[in-house]
């Protein structure tokens, strides 16, 4: 029996799996774990990054979502073509809250849906001719676009189009980079392969080919990598780094230009925010250019102080000292936030199910408010993500990988959390169950949650969800 979760975690797992057909239950068992913070990869074998079982109602998306929606989409001065039928671009249009400064349709194209809108003819005769023509038309319509990416949807790979050759020809013809991205939705098993493919296309088509915007290097140059600027939080993170005396020569990809993106090989240190979606580039830069990288976490004061010190250690006394000054400056504000909200949230139990890094990254922020994360899990994590997760969670907490809608609902019924943090597909299920809920992909249209400016907003929002009086109005159905 786990004190933290109030139930025998392993028994709970086994009970929930009883509903599945035997084969699926056996497979799913490997994706569910009773946590041991001392876990190592040899003792904890949580299976991940394999195919979702058909029909179970997974929350996962696809490679296109990982590339167009996540990695490439926020690069603001490039036009990203949703190449294929109309739907994918429609559903991912303006929905991720990766803020960008600029004028939409003039020099920023993040909040747009630009598509080849495939028709039957394009499937039968191929879409390359159309692609060529529409790239020319993009140049006419958006003369300030600095580049173009071709984000493939499922049919493109199935009908055998040669978008690479179109990309090469059009790069020559138009004089701006036109980048093919083979992120057809059927590739891989989740968004994750889309991140990888997008990373590789940046490596192959940007690095060494596009000139970076940086004129002169300093010994304090860093890059923020893998911050999507949801609700603008790459900015609230950047602010901390700048106050520490560092120079952020690019924040990638949130609110990023092609010129900044091409600065990738130039910093002293790469600061990796979302490890899952950008570690491929970080490793490549380390191997090729000998640039070190470091993961950090600006979520909640405890982790922010820790990260400031960890980052400062990579530089000199001056930065270490300024880092301490920054902590000194903001600590009273953070303490005041905690003083206000902790009494209202102390001991509340949280269940999370999110994407790339948040299932582990945000645990500390909840703990700063006195809350306990009793269950967490990822949509598309790999083994190295889980290895980073075990130690962040209490003993016997529940960890799930790619849980189905059914599993999550049953776990929630048994665990009775005070707060659920997940996505839009989950939100209203838990509203119906009378469970306070916050979307932890989009910050539920609020934010930022990172950095010193973000934590007060986070605390306010969690308090609002848990303590709103409307929950008390729910009455059961007359039986």
């Amino acid at each position, binding site marked *: 029996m786990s004190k933290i979760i109030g139930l025998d975690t392993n028994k709970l797992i086994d009970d929930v799996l009883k509903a599945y057909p035997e084969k699926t239950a056996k497979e799913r068992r490997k994706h569910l774990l009773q946590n041991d913070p001392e876990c190592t990869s040899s003792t904890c074998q949580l299976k991940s990054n394999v195919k979702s079982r058909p029909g179970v109602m997974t929350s996962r998306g696809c490679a296109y979502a990982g590339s167009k929606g996540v990695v490439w989409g926020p690069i603001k001065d490039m036009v990203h073509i949703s190449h294929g039928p109309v739907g994918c671009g429609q559903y991912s249009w303006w929905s991720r809250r990766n803020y960008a400064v600029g004028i939409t*349709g003039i020099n920023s194209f993040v909040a747009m849906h630009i598509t080849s809108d495939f028709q039957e003819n394009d499937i039968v005769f191929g879409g390359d001719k159309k692609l060529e023509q529409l790239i020319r038309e993009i140049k*006419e319509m958006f003369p300030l676009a600095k580049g173009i990416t071709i984000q493939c949807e499922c049919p493109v790979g199935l009908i055998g189009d040669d978008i690479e050759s179109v990309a090469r020809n059009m790069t020559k013809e138009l004089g701006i980079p036109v980048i093919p991205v083979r992120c057809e939705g059927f590739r891989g*098993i989740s968004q994750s392969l889309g991140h990888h493919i997008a990373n590789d296309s940046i490596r192959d088509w940007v690095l060494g080919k596009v000139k970076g915007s940086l004129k002169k290097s300093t010994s304090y140059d860093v890059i923020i990598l893998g911050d999507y600027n949801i609700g603008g939080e790459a900015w609230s993170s950047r602010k901390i780094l700048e106050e520490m005396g560092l120079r952020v020569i690019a924040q990638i990809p949130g609110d990023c230009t092609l010129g900044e993106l091409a600065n990738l090989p130039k910093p002293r240190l790469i600061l990796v925010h979302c490890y899952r979606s950008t570690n491929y580039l970080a490793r490549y830069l380390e191997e090729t250019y000998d640039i070190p990288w470091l993961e950090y976490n600006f979520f909640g004061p405890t982790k922010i102080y820790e990260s400031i010190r960890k980052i400062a250690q990579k530089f000199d006394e001056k930065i270490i000292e300024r880092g301490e000054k920054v902590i000194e400056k903001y600590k009273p504000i953070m303490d005041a936030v905690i003083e206000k909200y902790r009494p209202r949230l102390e001991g509340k139990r949280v269940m999370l199910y999110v994407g790339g890094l948040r299932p582990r990254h945000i645990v500390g922020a909840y703990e700063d408010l006195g809350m306990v994360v009793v269950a967490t899990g990822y949509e598309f994590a790999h083994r190295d993500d889980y290895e980073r997760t075990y130690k962040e969670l209490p003993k016997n907490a529940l960890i799930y990988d790619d849980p189905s809608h059914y599993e999550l609902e049953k776990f929630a019924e048994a665990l009775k959390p005070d707060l659920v943090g997940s996505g839009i597909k989950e939100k209203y299920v838990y509203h119906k169950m009378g469970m306070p809920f916050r979307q932890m992909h989009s910050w539920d249209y609020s934010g930022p949650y990172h950095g010193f400016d973000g934590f007060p907003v986070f605390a306010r929002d969690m308090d609002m969800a848990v303590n709103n009086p409307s929950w008390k109005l729910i009455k059961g159905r007359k039986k």
Partner: protein
Amino acid sequence: MKIQDHVELYKREDYLELFEKKKKDFEETCPEEEINRIIEYTKTEEYKEKNFSRKALTINPAKACQPLGAVLCALGFKDTLPFVHGSQGCVAYFRSHLSRHFKEPVPAVSTSMTEDAAVFGGLSNLIEGLENAYKLYSPRMFAISTTCMAEVIGDDLNAFIKKAKADGVISPNILSPHANTPSFVGSHINGYDSMLRAILSHVSQGLKPAQGEHINIIPGFDTYTGNYREIKRILNMMNIPYILLADISDTLDSPNFGEYEMYPGGTPLSDVVRASGAIATISLQKYSTSKTGEFIRDIWHQPFVDVPYPLGIKNTDILLNVICDLTDKPIPEELLNERGRAVDAMIDSYAYIHGKRFALVGDPDLLLGLISFLLELGGVPVHIVCTNGDESFEEEAYRILEREPLFGKQAKVYIRKDLWHLRSLLFTEPVDFLLGNSYCKALWKDTGVPLIRVGFPIFDRHHMHRMPIIGYQGAINLLTLMVNTILDELDRETKDSPSFDVIR
């Protein structure tokens, strides 16, 4: 403690400085003058001409893909699980998209096809998908549609489902209609149509119910749950037995009783069988039910009447007259009173709408309804953009416009055009107001034309879909929304002038 979130933070000096410094030092953006030159250029006739000569490029289209419509349709039936054969990302998108509009859970499953399925076909995915979904979610009906992946590789749904049943993976009694819904043909309204036809055909197949006294109503791809409740209220008031097919009102607007129910509503499946014995079927949306209509006429041998979308007075009159003709029932006094109140409200408010110029965006049936309603109020439709409209829609739209030449003659109908085309039009031939979905707020931002939110999706305002816009009551609701948006605008315009009035 004053907590500042994204609303205040990014207007704060420290952030503005951060943006400025980032731009200057690292972004390599174009010089301000160049940006301003392009902004102005995009407002010109010259740009508009280029914009309208696009052949291959689509920018901000007002349409979604077929399987989304199939999923919406499936959600209108009791104990039915939308089941989509193909890549799994599509289903994640449909669920998100519909949840963002309805603020409701949207259950749907995918067969999660990946590269191996692209090579070997999706048979094993479909079979395992049915088995898992049946065990976990025990639906009585799987409403099976396809993504473009399954369509391109040419999976044979019919054979696959037969095999699943023959192998005993799911019981042969489980209903399993299937529709091919390629996203590279038509739009969400066609997916709705195909799925509905498949459900009616599959569920009623081989069954011969007694001839009933009831009529069937098909709402079409209608995302106002309030409209479903309104049509039911009207028919109840008229004391007419009816079956509302694909009724999403209780699945996508379900009460909160503190527990999650996966199938909280929808048309009972037994009613689908009974529907084949109805006096007639009335469709409220012609363009999203054309295949279904053919089926009802040819296979059910039942009269199928597609009335104009009952938005506004005249269209509601037509609907009620059709119902009365089919059922020999009179229009109850209560409804006549409602009509009278709606007309009264319109007469009280026309002064603010008469002569105002409007741009309209939406699905074909909704647009035809809106045109008709605007003409009743003396509004002037100017630009009518229908990304998923065809030539017959275009012709019909002009026919309606010609009925009131004084107000209708300025209008131009643009089929297969998108919101970027409309952006040009709003600059070169300005209008006073814009009727359209949430995405149109980008046009409001660029051109300053106030947006009145009508249609789908509406993501950025709450609960609008719960209020009906059809019937006489719907006319009052839509009128209220329109006239008050106009009056808000009037206040904004006059707030620094002596004509800032309290009585309007």
